[in-house]
Each structure stands twice: as structure tokens, then as C-alpha cells.
């Protein structure tokens, strides 16, 4: 049975520019979205920032109205039957917001148990269970303002599950988490799927979708490009690889240089809590993407995560030790970085030049 169906769903935001001569501008966030998601499915929505992932999630969760088209959850229209849908869904956003920082984790859950009109006896049983499931029991009575980001995110999920919803929306739940916390959270999500929940997950990490989802829709500029299984999607991008570098203060001109490199398909920068995550998608075998030892660079410290290596470590299993090394965010001196093959030796980037640029910014972090 289809739990979610959307037909030609469209959402337009209006914004204005100027002060005296205000001009209205329309931004198309969603443009003709057609989806169907079955009960018990873990469905992923993959796309870059601004693609419209959160907009779809909000519409399906009844907290945003579509401009046109229809969306039905459990066969009910999200506009006309929002009140009937709400008790049956759970909603979890990524990030720091969405919790009462001066309340304890337990009180946050208690408050939402009340809002979901749970009988006190049921809530009393369920709250300790959820705290235990999320590994928060020991610090359940502390104010959440002292929680780490990973703990807050687990509490978000506990809050989303407080009323035992049939359908759970997880909007970029691992964004901003360190790889270890993200991996723990992915294990929690897999556990929820095994428990029979229907899960709607958004992310901009393909490896996450690959590790978790039954099917994935790729969203770009408000349109769904393709819907398929992760393995089928991976075949489409078999000649691409992604390298992620955690650093900070990357200058725009450097990003432009990387972006215009012939071996690079796309570059994305994600703002983390204290750092930036530079994600470079490169064509395997393109000029300048040959593996090799990177040039020596004095000082600087490269935190390298993710990309293909991370994906392999998580999904394929045999490379666990390497994945653990990456996930542990072990600082790797640039001189010993082995998995940064993209620009090495390319004439556009004299040996060590890019490393020196990145290294300088990373060194600043070390000093800070």
C-alpha cells in the first residue's frame, strides 16, 4: 500500500527585493513532483542544498502548503486532513534547533508526549525506552544546552518517535555530525526500518542513501531527476568519485579554480559547526586524477573523510579498519595523506600548490 503519493506537486515561494521600489520575485522550490512510497519502505531523497528536499518534507508533514498539485499521506490530503495525519507521523529535522535548551532531554520528551496527547502511563513507559534506545539515559536529566550535536540529534529522533508514528520524516538528520555520530545515527535509522517504520529520509550524501535506503529519488532544482534503487543509481555514476576534505576558510577563488578543473564534475561546500566540508566530485581517470603520493607540504593537517573510501568502508565491509580510521577523524598530516589523488600532477595545479593553499587554512585552524 502506498503511504505517500504526490501528484504534480509544486511549491513557489514569494520574496521581495528593494525597499522603496519593491519587486516581487517567485522562487520555484518544487516543480511537478510525482512520488509514491510504500509502507515499510525506507525512501531517500537525495539532492544538494536548495534542491527542495526540506520543502517536500514540510509539505508532507503538513507544516507547509503546496502551491498546486496534491500530496496524500495514508490516503489523506495533506491540506484538508492535516489534523488526521499529524498524530500518525513523526518529524525530525537536522541541526541544533527544535529542542528546548533549558529543559532536560527527558522533559523535552515529556512535553512532546503531552502535545501528542499520549496517556501519562504510556508516556512514562515510552520515554525511558527511547532514551535507552538512543543512548541518552545517563544524561537524560541534564539540560539539553549541554548536549553534543550528536546527542541532540539522537534526542530529535527520540522526540520524533515519542508517539510511535507509522511514518517518520528525517530531514538531513546527519548533517553537521562528525562521522562517528553520523554512523551511530545511521544504525539507529536501520533499526527503525527493521522495526517496520516507513521512513522518508533526505540527505545530500549518496553513501548514506546507499547504506540505508530501499529506493532513492534524486532531486535537483525542484525536480525529480530519477527514482531507483541505490545500486542502479551507482551504476550511472560509476566513473565518478568524491573526495571530502574538512577544513575552514576556503577562499572563493580556490573553490572556483577547483570547480573549473577539467577533472572535476562538481564542488560543494557544506558549512559545519566550526569547519567547512569541501566535497569534490571528480571523474575517475580524468587528467590529474591519478593516484600517487601527494607532494610534501610543511605543516598543515588534513582531516579527510568520506567520499568513496567512506562509502566503501561502510557498505562493503572488508575495509572496516580504514573506515574506522576515517570515521574516527584521525588527523592525518598532509605528507602522509594517501587518498587525495585528484589534482596531483596536473599541469593546472603545480605540485603542492593546492595542498599549500588548503594547508595554510588548515594550519590556521591548528593555531586557533
Amino acid at each position, binding site marked *: 500500500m502506498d503511504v505517500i503519493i504526490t501528484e504534480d506537486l509544486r511549491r513557489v515561494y514569494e520574496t521581495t527585493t528593494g525597499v522603496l521600489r519593491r519587486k516581487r520575485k517567485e522562487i520555484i522550490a518544487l516543480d511537478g513532483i510525482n512520488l509514491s512510497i510504500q509502507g515499510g519502505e525506507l525512501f531517500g531523497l537525495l539532492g544538494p542544498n536548495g534542491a527542495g528536499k526540506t520543502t517536500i518534507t514540510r509539505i508532507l508533514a503538513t507544516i507547509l502548503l503546496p502551491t498546486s498539485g496534491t500530496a496524500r499521506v495514508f490516503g489523506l490530503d495533506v491540506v484538508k486532513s492535516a489534523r488526521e495525519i499529524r498524530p500518525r507521523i513523526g518529524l525530525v529535522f537536522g541541526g541544533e534547533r527544535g529542542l528546548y535548551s533549558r529543559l532536560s532531554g527527558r522533559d523535552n520528551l515529556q512535553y512532546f508526549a503531552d502535545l501528542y496527547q499520549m496517556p501519562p502511563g504510556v508516556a512514562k513507559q515510552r520515554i525511558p525506552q527511547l532514551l535507552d534506545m538512543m543512548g541518552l539515559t545517563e544524561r537524560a536529566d541534564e539540560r539539553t544546552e549541554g548536549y553534543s550535536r550528536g546527542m541532540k540529534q539522537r534526542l530529535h529522533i527520540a*522526540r520524533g518517535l515519542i508517539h510511535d508514528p507509522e511514518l517518520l520524516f528525517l530531514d538531513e538528520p546527519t548533517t553537521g555530525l562528525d562521522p562517528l555520530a553520523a554512523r551511530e545515527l545511521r544504525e539507529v535509522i536501520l533499526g527503525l526500518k527493521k522495526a517496520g517504520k516507513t521512513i522518508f529520509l533526505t540527505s545530500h550524501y549518496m553513501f548514506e542513501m546507499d547504506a540505508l535506503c530501499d529506493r532513492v529519488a534524486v532531486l535537483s532544482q525542484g525536480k525529480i531527476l530519477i527514482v531507483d534503487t541505490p545500486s542502479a543509481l551507482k551504476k550511472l555514476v560509476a566513473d565518478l568519485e568524491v573526495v571530502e576534505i574538512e577544513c575552514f576558510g576556503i577562499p572563493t577563488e580556490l573553490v572556483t579554480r577547483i570547480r573549473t578543473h577539467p577533472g572535476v564534475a562538481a564542488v560543494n561546500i557544506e558549512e559545519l559547526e566550526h569547519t567547512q566540508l569541501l566535497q569534490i566530485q571528480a571523474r575517475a581517470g580524468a587528467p590529474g586524477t591519478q593516484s600517487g603520493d601527494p607532494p610534501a607540504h610543511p605543516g598543515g593537517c588534513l582531516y579527510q573523510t568520506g567520499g568513496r573510501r567512506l562509502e566503501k568502508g561502510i557498505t562493503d565491509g572488508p575495509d572496516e579498519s580504514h573506515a574506522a580510521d576515517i570515521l574516527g577523524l584521525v588527523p592525518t598530516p598532509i605528507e602522509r595523506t594517501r587518498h587525495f589523488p585528484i589534482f596531483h600532477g596536473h599541469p593546472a595545479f603545480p605540485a603542492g600548490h593546492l595542498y599549500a593553499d588548503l594547508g595554510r587554512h588548515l594550519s590556521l585552524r591548528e593555531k586557533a
Partner: protein
Amino acid sequence: MISIWNNNLWTSGDIIYDERRSGTLSLILATPTAFPVVLLGKSFINAITSILAMGITFATGIIAFRLPIGIADPVDFLIGLVLIVISITCLGLVLGSLFVITRNAGEFVTVANFPVYILSGLSVPLTLLPLWTRPFSAVLAPTWGNILLNQSAQQLGGNLLPSYLWLIGLSIFYLIVAGVLYRRVEYLALRAGSLEQW
């Protein structure tokens, strides 16, 4: 009276502003509980605590300025106080709807604050105001609260029943208006996608 009014008015707004800022406003709206019910509970508790401000004002007058502050009719005064708290909580609920729809509601409320002082007789006696202002004064709970507290505290005489009835009637009226307004306001906020803006 001013402290109860101000405290409640701003708290209704602050609650929504805080919910908006902390990203919990949309999460609350995603629950089956109607948002006015959530706000009503929070505003009511706040109105009760605002009575402390009245106590502090009394204490300051008595201790610091040695003013002879006495309440001639304590029972009527207390009944009046309870009705005022309920009524102003309900009025705060109406004004709170503004804060759901726009993050700039604070400016509107600031502008509206002093006219309410004047119209409800908190800054000048109502008898000094022109006749055409009377209907506006009549629909403001602070007007009747002010009359009630003055009458019971100073034992000015006169029948307190009309003031009681006005406060009860206005509370019901505010609740109905708030209920209608919130339905409309929720629709507008969901349409504009403004719940997360702060």
C-alpha cells in the same frame, strides 16, 4: 494593572518568538494539539506569575515610600484579580496570533501599547476621554480590571457585578476571536512558509 497587562502581552509574543527562534514552532504545529491551547497554558502561568509584580509594587510602596496601601474589600479584590488574569490571558492570545503570522509583530504591539494604556484608563481617567472612545475602552479587559481593582481596593462603593460580567464576557469573546484568528493565521503562516523565519 499595567504590569499584568504588559507582562502578559509581551510574554505571548515572546513565547511565539522563542518557539520560532528555537525551531519548535513548526514542530508544535505538527502535533495534534491546537497551538492556541499550548499558548493559553503558557500565557496563563505567566499571568499568574505577573501577579508577583503587583506584590512587589505594593511592597515597594509600603516599605520604600511608607505609603498606606490597604485593600478595603480583599474578597472582591481577589475575585477581580482572578478574572483580570483570565481575561488578559485571553486577550494576549488574540494578540499572540499576530506573532505567529509575522516575526515583526513586536513593532505593532509596541505601537498599540500606549493607546491601550490611554483607552483603558491606566494613564488618564476615562472621564477625560471623548465619548467616541468609549466603545474602544469597553472591549479592553484592562478597562474593567482597572475599574474593578480601584473599586474593591478603595471601597468606592457601587455595584461590582457589571465589571465582573464584562470581564467574563470579554474573556469568552477573546477566546472566540482567538480561535477564529488562529485558524486563519495558521493557514497564512503555512502558505507563506514563515514558521521558521525569525
